[in-house]
């Protein structure tokens, strides 16, 4: 018997979503999920480890292939209920190397070693009497068990399934691995802990750690987004040219180079965030979420993620007025607050007219006879909001995406998500950091940290909202 930590074997008929459930509960997208029955041929362990100590372990197992034959073998031995476990163990011992019963041996071995049983069925398909043999075998094992109703399709046969499963399992729960969220996840873990009294404490501890794990992931994502904004806004791109007279082709070339560098930074951040949320299994080459060819510098991207012209004007006015107010303060009000007013007008109009321009292109003289053309840091006031909007959109969808989903999502984008998080107060706080990032100076740790906290707060609220 395994006493060190609880083990849960996810068992059932082939192709009923066992691997999907394990993938969703273990937050691991490397589980091979296929509609070809018999894809899982070996049990696979998914331990929840904290600093190397296993708190509980999920086991993905192959489905029953010859349940009637196994049951027939067990029933040949007429024994009292208290001896049934011994007969199941005997079956394992006798058939350990029999390829015919490989799948049954793989799934029964951990169960007989003390693992709790999580029996998975697809409640979107009708109940069938052929399931009774495997449920009876599980009853023979005498291990604590529960049933999970999975819904692979939209149809619902839960009522007939519950009626049948109720005769074999004390607890029957519904769990859709494709639409799982944190609360549903925790609720299933709580049910699992009820299977055995001594499992309550370690699983409860795991639930607390899961909450902490999610906070860690949100913080790390926010930190990556903050870093993206900092690097992108302060980015300077240089390209050597032949003379001090900049030709149009040099300007275009340096701008293309600048834009592709910014696109690369965004893509790299997306990959890092996917890795944080365990959505970056090595075999995946494509991005999980695509922006449907919505380029970072497209008008559409600006319309969906950026500020509206009105918001942009207000942002420009506020930041301009703040600079002007600083001048007023230096002159102790002797400027009759004209600094603030002029700053607001200049800032506002600058923001309005500078809607498309990214940054100034300068020519720098280097050694004798060599020149370089330079672009950056980012001057466009709308760009940080477009970049941040896209990053938050991506991180939010990755954070709420089930690990059982294998398809590449083409996200339909509109500005509704932006409306949920971008308030006037927040915009002001963000703008003050954007201004520092845009300055091209060395950025203090505190600026990056305070920006990370702002993004963290946005992500936390968005994720919480979907759970409510």
């Amino acid at each position, binding site marked *: 018997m395994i006493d060190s930590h609880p083990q849960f074997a996810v068992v059932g008929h082939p192709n009923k979503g066992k691997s999907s459930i394990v993938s969703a509960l273990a937050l691991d997208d490397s589980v091979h999920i296929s509609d070809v*029955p018999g894809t899982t041929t070996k049990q696979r362990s998914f331990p929840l480890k904290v600093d190397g100590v296993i708190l509980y372990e999920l086991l993905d197992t192959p489905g029953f292939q010859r349940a009637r034959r196994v049951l027939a073998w067990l029933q040949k031995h007429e024994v009292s209920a208290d001896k049934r476990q011994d007969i199941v163990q005997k079956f394992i011992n006798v058939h350990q190397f029999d390829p015919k019963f490989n799948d049954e041996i793989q799934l029964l071995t951990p169960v007989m070693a003390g693992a709790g049983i999580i029996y998975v069925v697809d409640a979107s398909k009708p109940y069938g009497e052929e399931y009774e043999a495997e449920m009876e075998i599980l009853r023979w094992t005498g291990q604590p068990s529960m049933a999970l109703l999975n819904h692979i399709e939209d*149809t619902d046969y839960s009522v007939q399934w519950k009626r049948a499963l109720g005769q074999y399992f004390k607890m029957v729960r519904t769990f859709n691995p494709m639409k799982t969220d944190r609360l549903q996840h925790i609720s299933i873990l709580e049910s699992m802990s009820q299977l055995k009294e001594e499992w309550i404490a370690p699983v409860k501890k795991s639930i607390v750690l899961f909450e902490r794990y999610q906070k*860690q992931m949100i*913080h790390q994502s926010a930190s990556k987004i903050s870093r993206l904004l900092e690097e992108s806004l302060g980015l300077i791109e240089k390209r050597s040219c032949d003379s001090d007279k900049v030709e149009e082709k040099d300007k275009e070339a340096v701008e293309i180079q600048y834009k592709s560098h910014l696109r690369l930074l965004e893509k790299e951040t997306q990959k890092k965030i996917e890795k944080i949320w365990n959505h970056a299994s090595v075999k995946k080459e494509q991005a999980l979420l695509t922006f449907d060819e919505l380029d970072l510098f497209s008008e559409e991207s600006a319309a969906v993620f950026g500020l509206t012209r009105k918001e942009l004007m207000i942002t420009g006015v506020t930041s301009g007025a703040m600079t002007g107010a600083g001048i007023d303060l230096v002159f102790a009000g002797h400027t009759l607050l004209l600094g603030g007013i002029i700053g607001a007008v200049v800032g506002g109009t600058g923001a309005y007219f500078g809607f498309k321009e990214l940054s100034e292109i300068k020519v720098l003289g280097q050694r004798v006879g060599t020149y370089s053309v330079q672009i950056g840091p980012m001057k466009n006031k709308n760009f940080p909001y477009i970049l941040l909007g896209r990053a938050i959109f991506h991180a939010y969808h990755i954070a709420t995406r089930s690990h059982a989903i294998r398809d590449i999502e083409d996200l339909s984008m509109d500005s509704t998500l932006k409306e949920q998080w971008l308030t006037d107060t927040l915009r002001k706080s963000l703008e003050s950091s954007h201004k520092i990032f845009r300055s091209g100076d060395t950025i203090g740790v505190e600026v990056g940290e305070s920006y990370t906290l702002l993004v963290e707060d946005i992500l936390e609220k968005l994720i919480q909202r979907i759970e409510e």
Partner: protein
Amino acid sequence: MLIKRAQFVALFFSLGLGLALLLMIATQDIAFAWSTTLQVSPQGFHSVLVCVSSPWSFYFPSAVPSLELIEQSHYFRLGDNLSQKMINDASSLGAWWKFLLCATIFYAIFLRFCLYLLSVLGFQLAITKSILSMEGVKQILEDMNEPIISTHAIESMDSYEVVHTGELQIIDAFRDSYNGVQGWAMPVEKLLVLNDILSINSQVLYEVGGTNSLKVDSEIIAKSQGEILLYVKGWEPPTMDFIDYLEELLIEVDRVTVMPIGTEENSYIPMPKSIEVWSRKLALLEHNKVYFKHFTQGSDI
């Protein structure tokens, strides 16, 4: 760094100053005096000096100039009586050295030393801050402070794909009659309904698999002959239990036509994905007696 070095140099300058004072006291007979253009009385000057000497007055009361000493050492450029008084008290004028030494030690050396320590501290803080601002350092620190939580499998999984081999014989139309119709985990009543819908003519109907015992299935196989139509639930994957049954049945009969059906709610039309799963599995058998029939082809509901 610059501030730290400046404080270091200043500290040594102050130490030098203290040493020079000690040297002068030791080697020369110095008569100290004080004077001012301002109207300051010895009492007023005394109270200022008491205030200045407060940091060491408790430990070295003799290093605090007395009112008497101040009065004696008051030097005026004009006037005979005062100069005569100073001459009389010349021996006591040297007592000032204790005050001057304590003032140098405390105000020049001790306070400078404190400033030097502050600059060292500030320098260390600045280094720490600059290290923290380096890319990745913060992440490492966070990783060290936070528990490392992992949920994934230890070993990576090799994807297991069934290699598709073999050809499946697909028929387009039903036979006029079958020697037997069987349903895998389907009651006879369901078989009657399906036969009725598909206009299948057969008097020998059996439920196989499902809750049947293996013995019952063997008896059905023994009774089977000729051509068999075998209905299967399209939504359930073909298990090895089914394959075992089919292989045993194929020994006894001439031909088995397998037809996956859908759910009643779907008017028994199976999903394309399930047809694919069944046809793929049956093709793997590569058996010339096995035929496959699509529900929608050659059948009208």
